[in-house]
């Protein structure tokens, strides 16, 4: 942005003036002190910062003293394409007007004008940088706060990465603004600088720990409570057991007490009995003796009666036994007889069977003999046997031989018809067809005639005759033999001989059969035996008694016999048994007779003893008379009663003593004592158990109503919420931290890149002032921290006021140079370099000259020559109030 023109009216001491500035280059506005130079800079500030109707003290202060008039400020500005005139009248008749000149023409007034102007200014320049770069009178020594300046940062960025194409001003502004918000986020959780966790994080952690401790404490109490509930249940169970044990101990003790009492009473009783027994020992002995004897006597008497009865009974019981034994014997005899009968029956059937067998043999033998006789008779019918046949066979063979010889010697005739013809042989005619043959051998003459054509005679020779005669002889011989044998021919002879041979064979077979049937026996002997057997059988049958009936057949007979034998065995056994019983009965009888005898003897012996005892007792003390009517019996009874009583006492004492011994009185005493101790202990334990139970019950009741579990759950719930919050917080903190670190690292890296261009510019300008060995160090906020000159580094604070001012101006100039292009702002120096020596001033002038080539510089000064060294500068004299330059 460039300020092209400035007009003031009624502004502090300035009545009216209008100044025009070089858009590029240095304009020096020179005037004496209090000429109102500072009003110029102030007017620009007011125009930009305050509305025309502002009642601010600063606004009111610009009204000329003593004059109620409006103070007017008008500025013509250019930023890139945009050009406008901005006018305000403050205080009296306040007004705002904006005349847009380019690129379009428009006029706005009032608030609208103010808003539009602000917008244009903000778009056109970096307001922060504008303010930072201004050095006002007296305030110029402070290092410029260019930190947040977007133009500067953009310029620096541009300078740092000029090759890559810089980001726009807006982007850079956004980057810095964003970083500021990131820092704000970060510092919610961490301290700046060291990055320690802030109280909110530690508090969140602490809260979780606290709540966790609460929860643990409550859970612990709850666990204790649960353990006590458990203990309570255990105590109750133990209490039950103890009650049972107590009941048992009580019952045991009572039992033992009773036992002890019993033992004591028994001992007393024994004592009494023993005393009584001792006092009447003598008397009792006598009573006892007599009583015993009497009792014995009566026992013996009774026994004798019993034994007598028994002996009698034994004798009586013998009779049936004997009877039964007899019966058994009879039975046995009978069974023996039946067995014998059955055996005979069986033998009879064996004989009958034998007889049947023999009869069958005899019949078969007779049959075979009849056949032999018949075949022998038949044999006579066939008279030619082999002996007679032989000469006939011989003669027959001779005939055959002769016939053969004759046949061999006879002519052989063969005729073949050449056409159909009739052939007559020895007068016998036969028809022949062409090709038919006729053949004949002949020993005789033969007459042949063929049709009516030819007759043929055939005569045999001499040899044939001889052969014929031989044949005749032989035939005769054969006939003779046959007639001798009584047959017509050799054939018949052979037939007869054959039949004879067959009959002979059958005969031999029949003879053999007969032999087999007899089996080496003689047929007559068999007959004899058979007769004998038949007689025997008949005799048995006739002689056998009718009952028991005989069995039908051998099998049945055998079964009957076996049954009879079994019966016999049984009968034998029965007899043995009866015999044994009888023997026993006899023994009993003998024994009881013997016992009776003994008892009688014993009774006698007791009687003797009684006699003796009575004698001992003496008649003066005891009337033991036996008379029925006397007082004896009652005395005897009394005596016996006394005797019995004494005996009873003694016996009771003995029994009691024995029982007492059984009771183990010492043991009873020890046990009783122990059971009393157990009882006491059980009572104590139960009381203790109940005491603890009661205490615990009260405690648990109170604790149970304390709502411990709900409290624990509540703590758990609060803990969960705290954990959620803490984790959420930690998460946000971690995010803010990560973002901050990433961003500040990137920013630092970019800052480091900015340092170079800025310090380079400062040093390039500064070397003209401080010499070639001048250098500066910039801090993180891009402020000059140290100046290095000739190898000596000094912090800025240690420098002289002049040097500090020069450095401050150099810094601003460097910045202005860096942002001199589109983002450039006018650099206004108000009454500066007052501390500079002439050499430095000259050098600074040279620097300003250089800077003026790149941006607009406005210098207000009271010293006409101070900036004479700025050769390119346009000099404007700013005169008195009433006389503008």
């Amino acid at each position, binding site marked *: 942005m460039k300020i092209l023109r400035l007009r003031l009216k009624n502004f502090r001491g300035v009545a009216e003036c209008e100044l025009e500035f070089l858009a590029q280059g240095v304009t020096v506005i020179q005037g004496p002190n209090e000429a109102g130079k500072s009003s110029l800079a102030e007017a620009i500030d007011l125009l930009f910062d305050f509305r025309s109707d502002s009642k601010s003290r600063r606004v009111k202060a610009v009204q000329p003293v003593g004059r109620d008039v409006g103070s007017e400020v008008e500025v013509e500005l250019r930023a890139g394409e945009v050009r406008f005139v901005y006018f305000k009248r403050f205080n009296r008749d306040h007004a705002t007007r904006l005349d847009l000149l380019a690129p379009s023409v428009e006029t706005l007034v009032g608030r609208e004008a103010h808003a539009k102007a602000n917008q244009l200014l903000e778009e056109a320049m970096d307001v922060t940088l504008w303010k930072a770069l201004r050095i006002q009178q007296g305030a110029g020594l402070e290092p410029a706060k260019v930190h947040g300046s977007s133009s500067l940062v953009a310029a620096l*960025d541009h300078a740092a990465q000029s090759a890559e194409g810089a980001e726009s001003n807006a982007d850079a502004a956004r980057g810095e603004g*964003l970083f500021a918000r990131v820092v704000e986020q970060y510092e919610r959780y961490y301290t700046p600088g060291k990055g320690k966790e802030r109280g909110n994080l530690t508090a969140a952690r602490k809260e979780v720990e606290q709540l966790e401790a609460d929860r643990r404490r409550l859970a612990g109490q709850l666990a204790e409570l649960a353990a006590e509930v458990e203990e309570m249940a255990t105590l109750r169970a133990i209490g039950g057991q103890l009650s049972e044990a107590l009941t048992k101990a009580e019952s045991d003790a009572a039992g033992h007490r009773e036992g002890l009492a019993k033992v004591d009473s028994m001992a007393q009783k024994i004592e009494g009995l023993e005393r009584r027994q001792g006092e009447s020992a003598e008397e009792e002995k006598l009573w006892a003796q007599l009583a015993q004897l009497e009792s014995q006597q009566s026992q013996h008497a009774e026994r004798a009666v019993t034994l007598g009865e028994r002996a009698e009974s034994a004798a009586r019981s013998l009779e049936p036994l004997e009877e039964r034994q007899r019966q058994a014997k009879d039975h046995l005899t009978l069974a023996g007889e039946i067995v014998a009968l059955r055996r005979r029956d069986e033998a009879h059937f064996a004989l009958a069977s034998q007889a049947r067998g023999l009869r069958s043999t005899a019949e078969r033998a007779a049959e075979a003999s009849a056949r032999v006789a018949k075949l022998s008779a038949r044999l006579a019918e066939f008279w030619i046997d082999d002996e007679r046949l032989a000469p006939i066979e011989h003669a027959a063979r001779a005939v055959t031989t002769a016939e053969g010889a004759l046949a061999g010697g006879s002519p052989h005739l063969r005729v073949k018809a050449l056409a159909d013809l009739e052939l007559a042989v020895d007068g016998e005619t036969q028809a022949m067809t062409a090709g038919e043959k006729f053949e004949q051998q002949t020993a005789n003459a033969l007459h042949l005639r063929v049709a009516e054509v030819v007759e043929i005679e055939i005569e045999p020779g001499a040899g044939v005759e001889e052969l014929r005669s031989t044949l005749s002889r032989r035939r005769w011989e054969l006939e003779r033999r046959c007639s001798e044998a009584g047959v017509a021919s050799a054939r018949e002879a052979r037939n007869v001989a054959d039949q004879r041979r067959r009959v002979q064979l059958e005969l031999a077979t029949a003879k053999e059969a007969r032999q087999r049937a007899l089996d080496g026996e003689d047929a007559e002997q068999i007959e004899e035996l058979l007769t004998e057997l038949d007689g025997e059988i008949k005799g048995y049958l006739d002689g056998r008694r009718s009952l028991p009936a005989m069995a039908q057949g051998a099998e049945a007979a055998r079964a009957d016999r076996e049954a009879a034998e079994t019966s016999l065995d049984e009968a034998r056994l029965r007899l043995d048994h009866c015999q044994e019983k009888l023997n026993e009965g006899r023994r009993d009888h003998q024994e009881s007779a013997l016992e009776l005898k003994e008892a009688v003897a014993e009774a006698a012996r007791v009687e003797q003893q009684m006699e003796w005892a009575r004698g001992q007792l003496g008649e003066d003390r005891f009337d033991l008379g036996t008379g029925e009517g006397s007082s004896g019996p009652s005395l005897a009874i009394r005596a016996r009663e006394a005797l019995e009583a004494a005996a009873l006492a003694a016996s009771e004492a003995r029994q009691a003593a024995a029982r007492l011994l059984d009771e183990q009185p010492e043991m009873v005493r020890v046990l009783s004592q122990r059971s009393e101790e157990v009882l006491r202990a059980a009572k104590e334990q139960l009381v203790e158990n109940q005491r603890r139970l009661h205490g615990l019950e009260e405690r648990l009741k109170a604790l149970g109503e304390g709502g411990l579990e709900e409290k624990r759950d509540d703590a758990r*719930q609060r803990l969960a919420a705290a954990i959620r919050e803490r984790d959420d917080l930690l998460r*946000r903190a971690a995010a803010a931290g990560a973002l901050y670190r*990433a961003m500040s690292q990137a*920013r630092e890296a970019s800052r480091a890149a900015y340092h170079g261009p800025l310090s380079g510019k400062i040093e390039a300008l500064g070397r003209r002032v401080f010499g070639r060995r001048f250098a500066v160090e910039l801090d993180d906020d891009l402020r000059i921290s140290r100046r290095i000159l000739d190898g000596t580094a000094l912090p800025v604070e240690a420098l002289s006021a002049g040097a500090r001012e020069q450095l401050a101006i150099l810094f601003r100039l460097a910045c202005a140079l860096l942002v001199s292009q589109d983002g450039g702002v006018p650099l206004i120096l108000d009454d500066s370099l007052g501390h500079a020596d002439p050499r430095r001033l000259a050098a600074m002038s040279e620097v300003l000259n250089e800077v003026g080539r790149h941006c607009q510089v406005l210098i207000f000064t009271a010293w006409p020559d101070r900036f004479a060294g700025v050769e390119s500068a346009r000099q404007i004299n700013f005169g008195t109030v009433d006389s503008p330059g």
Partner: protein
Amino acid sequence: MSKLSIGRAERVRFLHTGDWQLGMRRYYLDEAAQADFAEARLAAVERIVRLAAEEECDFVVVCGDVFESNQIEAKTRLRALEAMRGTVPIYLLPGNHDPLDATAIYTSRIFTEQRPDNVHLLDGRVEMGAGVELVGVPWRSKRPTEDPVAAGFSAELEEGKLRVVAGHGQIDRGHPKPERVDLIGMNRVEAALADGRLHYLALGDRHSVSEVGESGRVWYSGSPEPTDFVEERPGFVLRVDLSAAGIEVEQRQIGRWSFEAKSVELMGIESVEALATWFDGLEDKRATVVRLVAEGQLTLRDSAQLEEVLDRNDNLLAALDRPAAGRWTVLPDDVDRERLGLEGFAREALEELQSQAQKEGDGDAARDALGLLYRLVAEGRDRDGGGE
């Protein structure tokens, strides 16, 4: 009221409920939501009391876990007892959460001295007028050593009488396990039903209403208000009409709250919008607890949109539980980068964070930092009055 006739039971009507778990806390509920939750449960009890009167029930039996614990605060006890005040007798059976041990609520002073007249501890047999007996088998410790109901129906029953047994515990489904003596033996139950020693077994412990077996006479009523995400069908009580002729069991809705566990895979703006639609579709949001497990990956702008959706519903719902385990990851894409419009060192920082964010595990902070960056840029734009 359906009066029982003298001598023989003609008909009995009662409400079967259980597992009220009064005094229960849920760690994922914040303080206000927890208060609402507790209030809702008391209101459910009051509805049950009213329902019992309206339906002319003879009694109400609560089958165990009436209270979350024996160690609950006096305020909870008193409020619970007050909620039960009414005309119909209510029988409370101690369960595994509130056993009849040394610290039992039922023997505490508050209960014995301040309970309303219609509220009774159920321990053993109660004659409900002639002809019907109600038998409760309470838990006496947290570790029972025998079948938790069998004692209720072991005794023979007079001809013509009806027996309702109330118990608490898990069933063995007819397959007894020797190591689990604390299970309800279904074989025994079936036998008792078959030989007329039992006519209805009212069970508690399971928080979902469900019938056991096929007799129609063994039921879990479930909790009247839901207590957790895993329950299948909570929110009911059972109205039971029992007579010698038969049985009729009706489910009555009591609960108003619901617990919804939602899992989503996030990818793209559509998934965010779908989730928003799902949330919008929830009825009675103030009585709905949602546990959201959202996984996947979103761009910066989609994630910002999602955060808006979640913030909105976090306010609307009774509670929105977002377990830390299931979180989507956020990675900027080119559009995000362009929209951020960062240059210079800010852009370098963005690129650095982006590369950190892609690292598995320790990239969380970087991903969150990207989200923060996105937000700060947006805020900056708002503050500058500009934006795109």
